[in-house]
Structures are given as structure tokens and as C-alpha cells.
């Protein structure tokens, strides 16, 4: 029983990695629902999508969110329906939505099928990479009938992204993006954080991993010898004093950069705005 729970947790941990903003597996925002007339009562089941709905001017249509959705602050006024993965259908239905927006993952397939059977439109979007943001913004704009604002948000995002990409020169310092210490779980090339670090003038030493996040061996970290360790987890896991971690020179020298806030939890227009803050944190840690 416990063994089964543990293995389920591995799967859940990977999924959670997506939900908590460490990216997902597939890239590219994807639409699955036939979107009819603009929705007026929307339940959003992902913190990243909730924030984007507010950004494109659809916040007043939100009647439900997950317990993790706290950005922007106005989102807290929207009633919570609990978790976003394998959500509580009863709480969702009680909000009488005409559209439910999901983070696109197989874990939600059953919930989507049941809502559709109940005649409620659903939209599944994946926002793992920066380029997913404008795509998702436009799809949400269509679904909520706020396409003009969504278009301007998307265009502004694309312009800034291009400008930022052009401004990058050289691979810069090697950065280890660590989300958990035991086992070491690092951010891989599938996450927008790898892109953000690149825009901030560094490079993720595990960019070659296609996963958004993955458990790796400590030896692999020591071998890749990052210049800076970027702590992207929700807490400081107190691992820095553990003897085995002293094999990593950046840990031994305490070259840590710490960034907090939802700009680093999921891709959004605010993530791009936070690149300078990230660059400063990496430069400060590398000194």
C-alpha cells in the first residue's frame, strides 16, 4: 500500500513539477475544446492561466480558481475550488461555470470528460515555455471574448522576448537550477526557467535534459560544476550544510542565487519583466 503510494508520488511529483511552474512535458499551448460564444463564468484550474486571464482583461469573468492561485492579488477574491490536478468536480459544478480552463495533462482527462458530459466547455492549455504565453493569451482572448486586449498582451510579449533574445551574448556563467535537494531535482531544458536564465545571460548546466525537471545524481552536478546555484524551490531546504553537497564547488563557496515569486513559478509577462532581477541575482552570486 505504501509502496504504491510512493510510486504514485513519483508520478505526482513530476506532475506537480509542472503545476508549480517547473514546466511540463509537451511544449506549445494547445487547445482541445470547440470554443463557442464567449464564456461569462470561468473556472481556472492553473495558477499560470488564472494570472494570464487577469492579464488579458478577463478577470471579472472568473468564478473559481485553485487554492494555489494567489497572483495577481485580485485572484484571492475569487472563490477557491481546491486543487488543479484531479480537481474536485462538485466544487467546480457548484460555481455553475460555462467554461473550465485546465492545465493540459493526462491527469485531468477524466475530469474533462465528466465536465463535457455535463455540457460545460473546457479548454486545456499548456504553458511550459515562454513562447506558449502569447499562444495561450490569444486562445483565452477568443474564449473569453477579449481578443483585442489579448492580442496586445501577446504582441507586447513577443516584442520584448525578441528584444531580450537579441541582447544576449555568450553562454555566460553556468547555472544549476535546483528545486529539491534529496534526491537532487533540477530544472531541465523543457522548462521556461532555462530560457529565463539564458535571457539573463547565463546557461542552465542541465539544459540538455529534455524534461522540465528531473532527479539527477549528485555526481552529475559535481561534474558539470555550475558557477552559481539558483534556488528555485519554494523553501530553502537546509541542504547547504550537508557533507555530500560540499562536493559541488558552488555549494562549498555558497554561490547561491535565490529568486522568489510567481514570475519564476510559471511563464508569464511578468517573467520577462523579472529577467533583470534574475540577471542581478546571478551576477551577485557569482562574485
Amino acid at each position, binding site marked *: *500500500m*505504501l*509502496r504504491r*503510494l*510512493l*510510486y504514485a*508520488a*513519483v508520478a*505526482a*511529483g513530476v506532475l*506537480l513539477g509542472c*503545476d*508549480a511552474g517547473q514546466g511540463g512535458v509537451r511544449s506549445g499551448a494547445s487547445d482541445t475544446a470547440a470554443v463557442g460564444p464567449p464564456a461569462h463564468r470561468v473556472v481556472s484550474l492553473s495558477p499560470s492561466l488564472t494570472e494570464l486571464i487577469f492579464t488579458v482583461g478577463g478577470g471579472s469573468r472568473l468564478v473559481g480558481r485553485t487554492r*494555489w492561485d494567489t497572483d495577481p492579488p485580485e485572484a484571492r477574491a475569487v472563490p477557491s475550488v481546491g486543487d488543479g490536478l484531479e480537481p474536485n468536480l462538485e466544487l467546480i459544478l457548484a460555481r455553475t461555470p460555462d467554461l473550465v480552463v485546465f492545465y493540459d495533462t493526462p491527469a485531468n482527462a477524466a475530469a474533462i470528460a465528466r465536465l463535457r458530459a455535463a455540457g460545460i466547455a473546457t479548454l486545456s492549455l499548456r504553458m511550459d515555455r515562454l513562447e506558449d504565453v502569447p499562444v495561450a493569451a490569444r486562445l483565452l482572448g477568443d474564449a473569453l471574448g477579449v481578443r483585442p486586449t489579448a492580442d496586445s498582451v501577446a504582441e507586447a510579449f513577443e516584442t520584448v522576448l525578441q528584444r531580450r533574445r537579441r541582447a544576449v551574448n555568450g553562454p555566460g556563467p553556468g547555472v544549476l537550477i535546483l528545486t*529539491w535537494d*534529496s*534526491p*537532487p*531535482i533540477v530544472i531541465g531544458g523543457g522548462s521556461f526557467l532555462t530560457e529565463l536564465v539564458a535571457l539573463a545571460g547565463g546557461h542552465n548546466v*542541465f539544459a540538455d*535534459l529534455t524534461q522540465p525537471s*528531473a*532527479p*539527477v*545524481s*549528485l*555526481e*552529475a552536478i*559535481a*561534474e*558539470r*560544476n555550475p558557477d552559481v546555484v539558483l534556488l528555485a*524551490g*519554494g*523553501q*530553502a*531546504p*537546509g*541542504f*547547504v*550544510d*550537508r*557533507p*555530500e553537497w*560540499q*562536493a559541488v*564547488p558552488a555549494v562549498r563557496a555558497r554561490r547561491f542565487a535565490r529568486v522568489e515569486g510567481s514570475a519564476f513559478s510559471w511563464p508569464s509577462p511578468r517573467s520577462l519583466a523579472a529577467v533583470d532581477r534574475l540577471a542581478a541575482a546571478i551576477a551577485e552570486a557569482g562574485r
Partner: protein
Amino acid sequence: MRRWLLLGVGAACALALGVLLGPTALDPATIARALAGGGDPATVTIVRDLRLPRALLAFLVGGSLGVTGAALQALVRNPLADPYLLGLSGGAGLGAVLAVALRVAAPWAVPLAALAGALAAVVLVYRVALIAGGVLDARILLLGGVVVGAFAASLMGAVMAVSPAPEVRNALLWLLGSFGRASWHAVALFAAYAVVPLLVLYRLARPLDLLTLGEESAQFLGADVERVKRTLYVAASLLTAVAVSLSGIIGFVGLVVPHAARLAWGRLHRALLPAAFLLGGILMVVADALARTAFAPLELPVGVVTALIGVPVFVLLVRRWAR
């Protein structure tokens, strides 16, 4: 004698393999130089501070799980018994999840909390087993272990469901079994700690032989059955609890290694226990080496590999001895 020699050579080869294999490709000459402290400092660190303590810890933990599995199988006279049977895994899991949910940030918080949880489960199971008229009834011990483990696992599920910290699920990853936390500190700690329970279990070899005949026969043949059972239970639990707190829950070694050892060395615990120790150590070191290298730089949970190696080996052994 030849079998012991073979086992000794196997243990040495496994340890060598544990140091030779890793996600970083290093040739044996470089590794030998690094072991002596020469060459690139980064390589020296990898070989001396990561690989060597990791291989040793894996060997000690694997060996201990093999011995506790053999002893517990004799205690409860059930071939399905393994070191985690007695509620330890649930207790350790609950402790680890609580430490993460409460955001305790000390470097040893999670292992210590897991140890505390495991020990609490041990005490609880012991109390439950004693309820039956003050004697340690093997059947009630088994049942107590299962229900206490299930109870702890449910509490753990509840904490995970309501905790505001999304990291709580990572605490479960921590339990899945890994030697990633190995260091010389951990090796020294475990070696110093494990010596006493291992010796205690070895000294119980003769009464264990008698116990496998049934408690009444053992009593009749002169064993102080109650005392033996209690000592065995306490020693095995304390040993497993520390193993869990250092390396998580690694299934299969404690279940299959005793059976394999019994097939080759017979039922006498004086030979069975040391054989289970060496075999457990060998299996664990090899499994860990594969876990680190098969999908490098990714690392597999070592418990996955112990089962992948252990099952076919066990089936082969059974076939050979059945003929």
C-alpha cells in the same frame, strides 16, 4: 569454504564496481590515482567523497537489510516478512512528510524526523503486540505492523492533501530510496550504529534456528523464547529505522536476499546471517551503480533496480535448487 571465498570476492568486485561506475566517465587508472589523492581535484572529490562513501553505505545498508529480513522471517515464521513489515516505512514516511510540511530547514531535519517516525511506529507495534497477554505474539506482531503502517500512511496522505507547502510530495520522493545522501559522515554513523544490532542478531543465531521449528519446540529445546523474540524485534527494528532514515525505503533486498542465502547456505543462522549480509551488500552496491549510470545524468530510484535485478536472480536460484 569455496562458497565463502566466492562471496568475499563478489563483495570486493561489487565495491570496486561501485567506485568504477558513475555518471562521469572515468577510466580505472584515473580512478586509482584519484583514490590515492592525485590528479584533478574535481575527480578526487567525485571518487573519494561521492563514489567511495556511497558504495560503502550501500553495502552496509544492503547487508543490514539482508540480515534483518532473515531474522524477521524466522521471528514471524513467514516467508513474506521483510524489514519494513513492522510499520517502519509508514512511520518514517509520516515523519519525513511532517518535517517538510512544517518547513523545518535544518540540514538533518528530514532524516531525523523519519527516524523519529520509524521509532514511534516500532514502539506502537510493540505495544500492540504485547496487548495479547504480555507475550510477543508473532501473528499479532505482523498484524500490528500492517495496521500501524497503514495508519501512518493515511495520516501522511492527509498531511499531503491539506498542507499549504507544495514541496510535501518531494518528501515522498525522498523516501523512495536513494544513496544520494551518502557521505563519510553517513558511513561512519551507520557503521558505528549498526555494529551492535548486527552482533546482537548474530548472537541470536542458535535460538533463531530453534524458533523456526516453532515456539513450543524452541521453548522445549531450551530457548528463552520471549526474551529472544523481544531482543530480536528491538535489534532488527532499530537497525532498519536508521537504514530508512539514511537511505529511504529500498524494497526487495530484505525480502529476497534471505531466501537466496537460505537456498545456498541452508537454514542454520550462524551461516545464513553472514551470507545474507554479504549478498545484501553485493546486490545493493550493484543496483546502486546501475541506478546512477543507466540513464545518466538522471538517477533511478535504487529500489527499482534492486527489484529488476533481484527477481530474475531469485527465479534462477529457485530453478536451480528445485532440480
